[in-house]
């Protein structure tokens, strides 16, 4: 039968791999060629795998294969090259999708590979994946448990009840048993990381479905002090003494709060949720969540309150069948000076990419563009000193790109139209990122601190900080007793002099 003209073809993994080899960027090919014959696993490749891969790819990790020893890695060499070369697109390894040609490039806990590291891997594979001298291996990482905490070992881990999800069950939403937190005093939290522990056989994923390694596809949760007699299965309370936390999503990475905006974990509180979304993995699965908190030192007090930015539009989504690059748009006006702490796209199965822009007056600036894979939902925490600092009145704009074609393996049937909904196979369109709000004084002080930290001159530009290069002298009382009261110096000499004075 002649293939109809508009019917798409599905690429096999082998065909895709072969095709990718053909279109390596010229620069990377050149780098790889230059390195040919001089790259070994022990000296050059193992450090890359330790930093970016072994958190999951270890003998007890969530990945289907370990990438620790040479024997582990050698047979996967071509696949490693293929997956790493995907870079910022779905299916890429490590699962980190920041596009490197646009927007802010400084993020916390960034596991992505540099151009040099990609070239190293390519050269190593081209050379036949030599082992090299084992004496040059870096010290091995320790994998003492089946949970590797990306943000670092938590100070406190809380474990939810175990949930059972049958193989053929439809999506489910509801509550979990509240979990008491064993704390005798209040503490402020600097990061929280949630890991799902389950009995999924990652070497046999069974039914092909989005997010199939996990059954918890989201958990909206808070910590609350429950009163005596409260039913622990009823997670919804209208009471006070509650702290909200970032939504847990399928395959999620840690949430790292702004250093000046730690969140309060109260003594005597419990983890509560009446909004857990479970999606069948295709096998009978038992799973629980481990919630790991890392604390600020005792005596810490936050400076900035969280901002209440609601950015998204998942109500009127209209995704045509068999069509790529369908755009969604949402806007929100910032009613206060705001620091963007994280960018966290949320798109579900058809989602492929999201960009975040700041519109200040006529000026439109892209803060970040990232790929999207609903198997590994990522929150991107801007590095300290690089978070967007946006004045009141700035319009935040997100653009979502949806791929409803066979080239997106997360979509169950791209021949069908797709709309809004809560199911993993339906569509959402939200930025779930974190922001903090600032007073005029705090906003000016943050910008001044950035100027000083980076020695900014008038020819510099800071992505996401449209006022950073302002040249209006700021009165000292606003900046504090130690401040010079100056904004960007007129030239480098003046900057150097200013630095000396300080």
């Amino acid at each position, binding site marked *: 039968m002649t293939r109809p003209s508009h*019917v798409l073809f599905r690429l096999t993994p082998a065909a895709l791999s072969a095709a*990718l080899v053909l*279109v*390596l*960027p010229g620069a*990377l090919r050149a780098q790889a060629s230059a390195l040919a014959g001089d790259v070994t696993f022990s000296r050059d490749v193992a450090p890359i795998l330790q930093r970016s891969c072994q958190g999951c790819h270890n003998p007890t990790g969530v990945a289907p294969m370990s990438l620790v020893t040479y024997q582990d890695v050698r047979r996967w060499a071509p696949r490693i090259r293929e997956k790493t070369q*995907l*870079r910022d697109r779905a299916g*890429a390894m490590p699962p980190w999708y920041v596009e490197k040609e646009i927007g802010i490039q400084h993020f916390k806990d960034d596991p992505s590979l540099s151009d040099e590291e990609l070239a190293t891997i390519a050269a190593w594979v081209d050379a036949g994946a030599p082992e090299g001298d084992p004496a040059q291996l870096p010290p091995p990482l320790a994998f003492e448990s089946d949970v590797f905490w990306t943000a670092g070992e938590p100070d406190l881990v809380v474990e939810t009840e175990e949930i059972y999800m049958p193989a*053929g069950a*439809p999506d489910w*939403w509801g*509550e979990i048993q509240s979990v008491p937190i064993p704390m005798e005093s209040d503490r402020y939290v600097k990061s929280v990381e949630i890991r799902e522990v389950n009995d999924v056989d990652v070497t046999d994923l069974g039914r092909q479905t989005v997010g199939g390694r996990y059954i918890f596809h*989201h958990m*909206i949760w*808070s910590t609350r002090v429950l*009163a005596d*007699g*409260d*039913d622990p299965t009823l997670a*919804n309370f*209208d*009471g*006070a003494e*509650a702290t*909200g*936390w*970032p*939504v847990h999503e399928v395959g999620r990475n840690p949430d790292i709060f702004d250093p000046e905006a730690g*969140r309060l974990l109260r003594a005597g509180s419990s983890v509560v949720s*009446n*909004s857990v979304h479970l999606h*069948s993995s295709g096998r009978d699965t038992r799973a629980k969540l481990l919630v790991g908190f890392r604390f600020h030192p005792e005596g810490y007090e*936050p400076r900035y*309150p*969280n901002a*209440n930015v*609601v950015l*998204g*539009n998942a*109500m009127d989504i*209209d995704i045509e*069948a068999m069509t*790529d690059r369908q755009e969604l*748009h949402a806007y929100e006006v910032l009613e206060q000076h705001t620091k963007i702490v994280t960018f966290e796209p*949320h798109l579900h199965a058809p989602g492929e990419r999201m960009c975040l822009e700041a519109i200040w007056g006529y000026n439109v600036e892209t803060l970040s563009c990232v790929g999207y894979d609903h198997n590994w939902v990522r929150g991107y925490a801007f590095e300290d000193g690089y978070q967007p600092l946006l004045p009141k009145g700035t319009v935040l704009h997100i653009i979502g790109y949806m*791929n409803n074609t066979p*080239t997106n393996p997360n979509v169950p*049937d791209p*021949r*069908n*139209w797709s*709309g*809004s*909904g*809560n*199911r993993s*196979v339906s569509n*959402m369109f939200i930025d779930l990122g*974190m922001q903090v709000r600032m007073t005029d004084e705090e906003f000016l002080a943050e910008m001044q601190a950035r100027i000083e930290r980076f020695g900014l001159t008038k020819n510099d530009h800071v992505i996401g900080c449209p006022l950073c290069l302002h040249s209006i002298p700021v009165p000292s009382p606003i900046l504090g007793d130690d401040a010079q009261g100056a904004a960007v110096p007129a030239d480098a000499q003046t900057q150097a002099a200013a630095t000396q004075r300080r």
Partner: protein
Amino acid sequence: MSPRIARVGGTGLLPIIALIATAPLATLVSAQSLTYTRGQTVSPAYEGFEVNEDGSFDLIFGYMNRNWEEELDVPIGPDNYFAVTTTGGLDDLEVDAYDPAIADKGQPTRFLPRRNRFTFKVRVPADFGDQELVWTLTSQGETKRAFASLRQDLLIDNMIIASETGALGAGRSDPETRSNVPPVIEIETDEVINARVGQPVRLVAKVTDDGLPITTAQRRARAAAARAAAGGGRGGAGAAGGPGGAAATPDSAGAQPDSAGAGDAVDEEEEEPELSPEIQALHRALNEPGRVTVNKVVGLHFAWFVYRGESEASFAPIQVKTWEDSRAWMNSPWSPYWEPPPVPEDGRWVVDVTFDEPGTYVLRGRADDGALYADQEVTIHVAPPLVN
């Protein structure tokens, strides 16, 4: 042309493949960003399937009419039909599979604006296997199809229905919510009625329901009672079924921006107990709704609409919209600030309907408790007006 498509590199092939394989080639700058009132197409939608006790399946369909005002009429025929095929048998939209013997599976011919979910069901036998039931719909000269299969990802139950329509907000439930069952409709008028143009026809539907899910007002009253019972402290056991709103402390403010259902708490009105209800309502009217996910106001209501028929009907009283009008202050459960109409004490919903054009009309009455629904239909044969 997007710079991304032009870029060739480690990530360049996939967009190129998509570009090659996708027609049309131009970026589909979303029509959904522009609110067309008319002239746009309708896409049939496959919602998923239910499993019946006897092993048969109900394949459920809806649609998306891209117009915000225009209602399209597409009669059963070559532009609106069903066909059964093997997997992929009708992937080519050029293939004409119209067979009048099997074309009519109870689908609508009148398409209301925007999103209409779970509109009708088609039963298939237990041995349906990997066949596909395909709905072909041509509107504004464009043909589109919905392919219904038994793929496991699309299994539906009452929770799926409640969730996808927005009754669960971003996805919350509790034992009480999950015990909800659909309302029951008893039509007290004839199922087939003869009428004339301009002649009002009275329709009476008695609706019974289990009272779930509880409304926002009921939830608040319950929470207030629980607080009072607890001696004025926090709401305790029994304050269930509503959004997990954050307390108004700086540290907990993160619950709203971090939750996918943040809008639930915002446009379900933060309480201002010191203000009168009238002033609170005025404040709400002037506030932008802050929802980000499909969100529906729950509360039993009943509404008639034209399911099949070439012209419009006039209803008195005005009927609640059964389609997802997400604009604020619209007469739709998906509209921010909407409140369900009072439920008749005797459960009987009475409406007069009048037609301006002769023809055969199928009117559907939908009882909707906010999460689950029930449908019944009447057929009205409308003759031309009498000439004196």
